[in-house]
């Protein structure tokens, strides 16, 4: 996967598979065939386009024999950082309902900043607290956005 060629072959394959799944799902759509544009036509067309595009990319890359540029993937430490970021983001989304937006915000911001820059714990905690206050007073109280409040609702 370090080479563009291999990356494109894999990407093309995955995309072709996605196209095939869409075509399969489109065949399940029920609708009036008498309509000018039956409901399954467009999903079929886009599914076929995706399948064809993915296959063409995979085949073209497979047969490609020229200079092969490197894909600029991160090193293992980089993958870990991305993984932790995505995990924190997923936890943030998952905790939004039970903890409420302000508390989840404070936790997420403080932990994410603290993770990236371990020397700035105080700054991380402060930014987290300020973000939570901004979310609570600006977005929820002033702008009236209906974010989950969690325990704060009581």
């Amino acid at each position, binding site marked *: 996967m370090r080479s563009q060629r291999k990356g494109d072959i894999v990407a093309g394959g995955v995309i072709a598979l996605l196209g095939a799944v869409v075509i399969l799902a489109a065949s399940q759509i029920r*609708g009036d065939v008498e309509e000018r544009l039956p409901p399954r036509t467009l999903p079929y067309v886009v599914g076929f386009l995706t399948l064809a595009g993915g296959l063409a990319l995979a085949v073209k890359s497979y047969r490609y024999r020229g200079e092969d540029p490197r894909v600029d993937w991160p090193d293992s430490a*980089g993958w870990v950082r991305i993984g932790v970021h995505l995990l924190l983001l997923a936890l943030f989304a998952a905790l939004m309902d039970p903890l409420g937006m302000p508390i989840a915000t404070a936790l997420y911001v403080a932990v994410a900043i603290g993770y*990236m820059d371990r020397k700035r714990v105080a700054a991380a905690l402060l930014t987290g607290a300020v973000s939570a206050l901004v979310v609570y007073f600006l977005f929820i109280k002033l702008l009236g956005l209906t974010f989950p409040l969690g325990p704060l609702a009581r």
Partner: protein
Amino acid sequence: MLFSWDLLLAGFADALSWSNLLWALVGCLVGTLIGVLPGIGPSAGIAILLPMTTMIPPTSGIIMMAAIYYGAMYGGSTTAIVVNIPGEASSVPTAIDGYEMAKQGRAGAALGISAISSFVAGTLGLVGLTFFAPLLANVALAFGPPEYFALMFMGLSLVISLSGRALLKGMIATSIGLLASLIGQNPLTGASRLTFGVVDLMAGVSFISVIIGLFAVSEVMINAERAAAHIYGTKIHGWMPTWAEIRRCAGAMVRSSGIGFFLGLLPGCAPAVTTFIAYDVEKRVSKTPERFGKGAIEGVAAPEGANNATSSGGFVPLFAFGLPTGPALAVLLGGLMMYGLQPGPMLFQTNPKFVWAVIASMYIGNVILLILNLPLVGFWARIALIPFPVLGPLIILCSVIGAYSIRFMLFDVWVALLFGGIGYLMRKLRFPIAPLVLASVLAQMLETSLQQSLLISQGSWLIFLNRPIAGFFMALAFLSIGRGIWLQLRSHAPEIAIDDADE
């Protein structure tokens, strides 16, 4: 007759009301901030803020969104010049000579000329918009659904064929964008499709969360992997370029205005493209091209002028046809639709007050930006020094708030997260992102106009070919696709998109 001085003056009267002035100012501030901060661009910025603006009136909301878009063009130059980190892709050519000037201790003059050139070209572009848009809207009044379908089809195929050497990848990106928007209910019949029995998918995938994911979340991922830390700035003193320098740049400003504006009318010619062209043209017409790359002040004036003229020019097809030329304008189009305003020629007839207030506000916004930029450049440059470990989580927080407030569904946050991952992989594997965004925004209008056209023609697809205007657009579309395929067959290069960051 869709243009009159009375309408324009009434627009100015509207735009100068306290509340609209305030929102224009907010938009200019946010836009400059977005432009200054690397890691978040106008498309993501507008997408994040869009759902939150539903509580202010449509005119004020769109005034603010438009100000964010052209404001970002001003801000992007600051970091390009001061620290050689372009805040946006469109500021890359600015960094070439701008950073050289900064190294010679002339950062102030470079920042000054970029603000002045932005102002001159942005305003000249607005004059073009003021007279061109109503003219084109007059033409577009003759458009029916087949013409609209053909126009949008042409827009999409131009964007794909401009994805450089990556035509296949552009096509794939387009179909993924179309796929995302096909999920959910059919806009006319309400029949559900591609939902795989998941209840959340019934409501469809919001293109706003798609864009937030593609641009904001993936950008944070890219920066996180590098463990990007601190950016150290240089000291700046002496803000103003000399009069002789301003005079020397006058030609560059006018030329880049023309290049930026007219190329900005075309789909796919985003500011990221036109700035390179303007820089190149300036180098060619210069009597001393050897100075370019070594701190030539015209090399700063030209791209900065071009990106602002392009952003003004892009509003012409948006207002006249409802056709966005790039991702940021596509998000703005989404904003218009969210307010229930159908963009296109009827907008000038049904909502003239709205259109002219927005156009007038752009003139005012350019003045605001000039005032904000000249004396406050030092402040903006310091903002750019916020370390990434602090900035990254805050961008994510804004993305989550933006995605959640579209419909107050957690589902939209997950969609943004998913498309963050997709966007990351697309960037790594060099897929162009713009076609995906455009396709996901245009999909619904494409589908509706296709259905209406087939109703008119009683099912015959020839309707797109035997009506002259529709046929013309279709021919252009097929020509651009054919040209792309021909270039692909001739070249034996791997599929690699040109750098396609958030414009």
